[in-house]
């Protein structure tokens, strides 16, 4: 089977964001991959290429063996299989939890259903199931997201990702602003959801959170300098990854 994500010789010039240079990698179904690197090493750029929001200047991106689709409709279906957990969550503050969860289905819904979602509670059972998967009470569904605590918001964002039901899960430092206990809980939830046929690629800036990952990618100044199982990443490798620029 084709890998869920394959990058071949990706290059992004470093104008408005950190650059990438000749990055190639493959992520197979069932893998939980952590992306390490210092600030500015290109982690966010790599994730933006992986979720289709940034078109690289050089190289090729393949999702499940397919290049970016040409037609608008097929492209949207392709994007629907790639889910991103954003660092700033990007919940829609003016809507309820249920409307936010259903917003993840917009790629597959037509206009009538998308409008109806703004009026009536739709697909309540599926939304409740998504909340239960992240250990939240389904009673939260009719609440506005502004009424939630910080930890609940993180979980709702994760539940929205599950509601989208993507194959490839991407996460951009989702635990950066969390206290250690919440961070560990969220990581565990995310890793639990990432078994085959799914895969997870998550950027981290703290190497102490690597428990539960199978594989580590190390970025340094836009280049992929490490790719291997977690246990092979020793102190010397880490030091090299985080060393100041020469």
């Amino acid at each position: 089977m084709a890998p869920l994500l394959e990058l071949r010789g990706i290059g992004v010039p470093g104008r408005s964001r950190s650059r990438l240079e000749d990055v190639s990698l493959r992520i197979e179904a069932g893998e939980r991959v952590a992306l390490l690197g210092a600030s500015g090493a290109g982690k966010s750029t790599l994730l933006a290429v992986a979720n289709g929001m940034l078109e690289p200047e050089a190289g090729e991106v393949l999702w499940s063996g397919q290049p970016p689709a040409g037609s608008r409709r097929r492209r949207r279906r392709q994007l629907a299989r790639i889910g991103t957990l954003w660092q700033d969550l990007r919940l829609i503050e003016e809507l309820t939890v249920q409307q936010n969860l259903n917003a993840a289905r917009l790629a597959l819904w037509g206009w009538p259903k998308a409008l109806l979602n703004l009026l009536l509670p739709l697909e309540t059972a599926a939304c409740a199931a998504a909340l239960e998967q992240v250990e939240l009470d389904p009673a939260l569904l009719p609440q506005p997201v502004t009424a939630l605590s910080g930890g609940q918001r993180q979980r709702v964002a994760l539940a929205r990702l599950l509601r989208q039901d993507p194959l490839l899960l991407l996460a951009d430092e989702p635990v950066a602003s969390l206290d250690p206990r919440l961070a560990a809980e969220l990581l565990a939830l995310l890793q639990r959801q990432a078994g085959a046929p799914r895969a997870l690629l998550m950027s981290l800036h703290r190497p102490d959170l690597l428990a539960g990952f199978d594989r580590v990618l190390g970025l340094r100044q836009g280049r992929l300098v490490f790719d291997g199982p977690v246990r092979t990443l020793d102190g010397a490798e880490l030091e090299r990854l985080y060393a100041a620029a020469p």
Partner: protein
Amino acid sequence: MSPLPRPAPPLLMLVPALVAVPVLLALPALAHGGGWDLIGQFLLAALRPSLDPLVLHSALSGLGVTVVIALLGWALSLGLGLAAGLVSSRTLWHTATGRRWPADLIRRLLALPRSIHELLWGLLLLQVLGLHPEVAVLAIALPFGALVGRVVGDQLDALPTGGLEALRAAGAPAPGALLTALGPPLLPAVISYGGYRLECALRSATLLGVFGLGGLGTDLRLSLQSLQFAELWTGLWLLLAVMLLLETLVRALRQRWGMPDRLGGRAPAVGRRGREIVLGAVLLVPVLLLMAHSLGLEPGLLLHLNPLPDLAGSYRPAELLAMPWPALVGQTLALTLLAGALAVGLAPLTLLLVAPWAAGRALLKLVWALGRLWPPPLTALLLLFVLKPGVVAAALALGFHNLGILGRLLLEAGESASPAQGQALVAAGAGPRLALLYGRFSALARSYLAYGAYRTDVILRETVVVGLVGAAGLGTALLEALSSFAWDQLLALMAVYALLTLVGEDLSDRARQRLLACP
């Protein structure tokens, strides 16, 4: 779960557009089909405006007069408004005298000049002063001044008074303390609002011209009524160029000086470059004086009033009571709500429809710009080529104009709103329209609808300008009373109209507060 479904904010933005359905269904019955070829000629002429030097010269000099009237009326309104705002501020009265009630009294008095549309001011002043350029300048300055006064007063009273109290407690005298504590935070809001008023003043000056008070508007109306569409478009394109230039300038200055957005979408980094702002204001004074001179303004004229008409002699109470008051008020309200709903609902709907195409967005921007600058009475006259006179024709004309204003506001606010939520939806495969609806529209919905409530209040005052299509409520009756010198009717109509607009203002204020307070 609540028993009745409540539309989420982004859906609420689109709900008013539903009135378009009955309007479209009613149109075939209202059309008389006589003038479609005229409409066609009018639209075609847009591509072939007259370039005759004589026409160009006449349009340019008319445009010059309109611009000067707008600038002078605007500058005068800012002066009047600042003064009115200061004397109607509760904080100010409280600091200076320890009392608040004089502020409330002055506020109520200011509501009256505000409730009368600048066109009515113009037509009334015309009776008292005769046909002079001062009439148009004052007609803009008086109601605008009262509006600016309200905004300044509200802003002043909404400022936190902690700094002021600290200064007073330390023994600073009232004027110094007020200036130090409230001046700097007040300035950005006033300048930002002032810039917006300048755009309004240009539209009003054009409108006053349509009713014969000088400038390009007069030419536009004459060209339209004599079916000289090519000449009409010469003036229109010139006016469009000036308006877009002005809007761009105001917007650039607002950004450069760090002034708040009109919808207040983003917390402003207020008040940069204070020296530049002061310098600009100082430079403006000689320019304005020069302009006043070029227009031949004579302030002394204001002392020579025409004798007032004999009100007592024309007083016929039986006829006044016999006027169809319920129908007049009903038509005015129907016209207001119809035009308001069309404008408020169609702006987001059309923006959604063209969202995927850059060319469509550019075309929409152009149509909206034309709607803004094109005076509603001229749209109404144009519509009468194919529609029967009445509330629907008048509402379409007013709705189109206000759609232009609301649409631009929505577009600007949308550009400054955070794109993050919409991008997240696109990344998950949502189309550009749904990403816009769920993303930016969600963030903007409440402040947009609150502005729509305010706009509907403005439309109520504006109904008089489309009165000339006939059978359009109080506006029609007012214009008829004016042209037949029925002074008693005119006074009674104006009183009812003013009362209606005061109630409307109150209702729109409440709607706005509810929309903005809701979690």
